[in-house]
């Protein structure tokens, strides 16, 4: 209320104030973006659902590490087709052909090759027969795998296969692909490998590379160029595949890499913005409201009310924060169906209010002696009116600054609790992501992109509010204004 125009000028003229405001705007914009584009149940529906990340490479660094590695890492690539290229007659049999292209531009091997077949409709009891061929830039065509799909007996036609669960063929792992490759390298390069030896080198190196000899050892070098995967389907004319997807696993992924479930960390961390802001704001608003109200009541009413409020504050104030909060959250989170984030929120509020209550009470004690409060009493104003119309405006700037100061504390407390495994695994908060990285041993494995960004973001959020509070300090504390 007393933060007047000049107060705003004081705030914006300070460097920390400006920096804090810019950071806050950034956080708010990120949050708005998330709220506008993410589904509300993002955590359960997307983040914690392994299906939504099945195509992604696991624990790969961000794409921009190319700058530092000296070699372009193979980017993740997905090719999708829904239409057939045409038909081809082989040995008198008419095959429908689907083609999936891939251009290998980087000097490396895709980490895996996977093909997914969705919704195949069949119009005959004989079913369909698939042949998957692989064409390399050097013109070689390898028959990777063949398989048949038959409709179950007594089912109505057209029978739809792979509708609930798509057919996933891990071409770079599939054993029959291995045997095809053995034949291929035997005839082409005259290399006599066993299947175990091939497993050792990985199929993808054979698929996407050529062998060279260096000092008696065979080294596989990547072969750049356009690769084609042809899926031949033998069946009735009307039979068709609704969608085909080929996934060429990358060595890097997205802006912030992936975790051990293949989850896009950039997405999860972005979702952390509104969550952090919400936790910070809600806990600080509720905590400050409770703390300030009790402080004003305690200071103004005095007597037994004061005694009771102050003794309770003393007790709560001296609770060891983390152990008690762990206990509270642990107990609450045992209740079925109770959202854990709400438990954390409640626990921070329950333990956070007494500091402000004690502080505000002491300020009210001196304020209530002032003549204008006596005057307010004299005009017949009720206690409640005096407390909230006369005393509160005098403390409002201070209370507001305290609220801002409390915000990073709340964000850090949530991160700490999540790190300790008390968070909600279904909501990707920054603390939660750090906890998962810790559990997966990210630090030991050198998966820095999983550990550092959430840590830095928590720091950024805390710094934002500390900057704002520092910028507000000269307004709230007039003694600093003269400097």
């Amino acid at each position, binding site marked *: *209320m*007393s933060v007047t125009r000049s107060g705003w000028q004081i705030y914006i003229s300070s460097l920390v104030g400006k920096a804090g405001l810019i950071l806050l705007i950034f956080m708010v914009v990120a949050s708005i973006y998330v709220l506008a584009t993410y589904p509300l149940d993002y955590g359960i529906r997307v983040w914690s659902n392994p299906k939504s990340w099945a195509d992604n490479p696991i624990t790969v660094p961000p794409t921009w590490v190319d700058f530092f590695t000296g070699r372009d890492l193979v980017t993740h690539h997905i090719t999708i087709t829904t239409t057939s290229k045409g038909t081809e007659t082989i040995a008198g049999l008419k095959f429908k052909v689907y083609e999936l292209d891939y251009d290998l531009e980087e000097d490396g091997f895709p980490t895996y090759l996977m093909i997914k077949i969705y919704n195949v409709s069949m119009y005959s009891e004989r079913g369909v027969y698939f042949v998957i061929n692989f064409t390399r830039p050097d013109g070689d065509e390898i028959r990777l795998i063949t398989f048949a799909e038959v409709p179950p007996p007594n089912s109505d036609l057209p029978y739809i296969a792979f509708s609930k669960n798509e057919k996933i063929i891990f071409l770079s792992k599939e054993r029959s692909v291995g045997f095809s490759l053995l034949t291929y390298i035997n005839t082409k390069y005259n290399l006599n490998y066993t299947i175990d030896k091939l497993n050792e080198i990985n199929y993808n190196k054979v698929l996407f590379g050529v062998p060279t000899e260096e000092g008696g050892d065979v080294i596989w070098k990547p072969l750049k160029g356009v690769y084609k995967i042809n899926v031949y389907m033998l069946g009735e004319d009307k039979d068709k595949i609704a969608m085909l997807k080929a996934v060429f696993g990358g060595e890097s992924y997205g802006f912030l890499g992936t975790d051990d479930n293949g989850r896009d960390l950039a997405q999860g961390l972005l979702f952390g913005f509104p969550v952090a802001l919400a936790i910070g704001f809600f806990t600080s608003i509720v905590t400050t409201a409770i703390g300030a109200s009790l402080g004003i009541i305690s200071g103004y009413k*005095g*007597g037994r009310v004061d005694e009771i409020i102050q003794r309770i504050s003393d007790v709560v104030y001296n609770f060891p924060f983390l152990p008690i909060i762990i206990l509270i959250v642990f107990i609450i989170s045992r209740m079925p169906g109770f959202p854990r984030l709400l438990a954390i929120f409640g626990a921070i509020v329950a333990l956070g209010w007494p500091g402000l209550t004690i502080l505000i009470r002491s300020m009210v004690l001196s304020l209530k002696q*002032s*003549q*204008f*409060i*006596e*005057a*307010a*009493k*004299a*005009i*017949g*104003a*009720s206690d409640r*009116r005096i407390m909230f*119309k*006369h005393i509160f*405006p*005098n403390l*409002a700037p201070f209370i507001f600054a305290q609220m801002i100061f409390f915000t990073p504390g709340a964000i850090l407390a949530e991160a700490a609790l999540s790190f300790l495994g008390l968070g909600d695994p279904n909501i990707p908060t920054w603390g939660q992501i750090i906890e998962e990285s810790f559990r997966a041993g990210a630090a030991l494995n050198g998966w820095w992109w999983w550990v550092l960004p959430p840590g830095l973001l928590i720091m950024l959020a805390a710094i934002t509010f500390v900057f704002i509070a520092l910028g507000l300090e000269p307004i709230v504390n007039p003694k600093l204004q003269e400097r």
Partner: protein
Amino acid sequence: MVKNILEVKDLYLYYKTYKGIVQAVDGISFNIPEGQTLGIVGESGCGKSSTANTIIRLLPKNTYKYEGSIKLDGEEITTIPMDEFRRTIRWRKVAMVFQGAMNSLNPVLKVGFQVAEPLIVHLGMDKNEALDRAKQVFEKIGLTPAFLDRYPHELSGGMRQRIVIAMAMIMNPQLLILDEPTSALDVSIQAQIMNLLKSLKKEYNLSMIFITHDIALASDISDLLAVMYAGEIVEYGPIEEVLLNPQHPYAQKLIASIPRLREDKEPEFLPGNPPGLINPPKGCRFASRCPYRFEKCSEAPGLVWINGNHYVKCHLYSEGK
């Protein structure tokens, strides 16, 4: 004969402190006829402000004894329950201007709102309507309505004091208590405020209690004068009689202490200090400093009526001296 707007009889107000019981107001009695002003003078700590607080019932938490009779316009107000008193008497019938205008205004609220607030609290008016009324009162006391939107720190001391008076006048009270309304102001502003009070008194036939330690100022506006000493009224009467013909030795000394311009006379002063109000002397409280002290002074004196509405609390005038 005009009716009495205020009749105070045997009023007591004791505070309890950790040192003992403070007898701040010890059995005082006085009347104020309608439209007249009572000046209460006395040195610091003699119970002037406590008297005012007792009438408007702003009692501190440590009140030990609150007794006696206060009749406002014939109605006994000491027995009214606190909540009803707050709603029906305070500010509606009795308003007060506090010591030091600088501190009577809330620094973070606009003065217009503060002046209008009694209307909101008592009449349940909405804010705009109340501000309209405040505007009218502002005009009456010679402030431009533009000041409604100012904060107290933007105004001078004199303006602030006017605003505090406006705040007191907004409910048209029957009795206005002024507790040293001019003590923090310079002399020219003081004169302005006094003129304002005089015009209000005339215009509204307002009864006032004017508390000050400045006898000259009290004489300017008062019709009656009460001299307080150590929690008691030692002399009370029409102002001319008390000033020109003081009877109580303390009143005599007090009036003699006023410096005079044309007389070649040193102002007198009283040696010694007033007694503490915790365990004051049993008899006359002025006895230890009184030049006319005699044996009987160890007994508490009663009220001695000189004539009509003039009394003194001294053994010198009691019968059988």
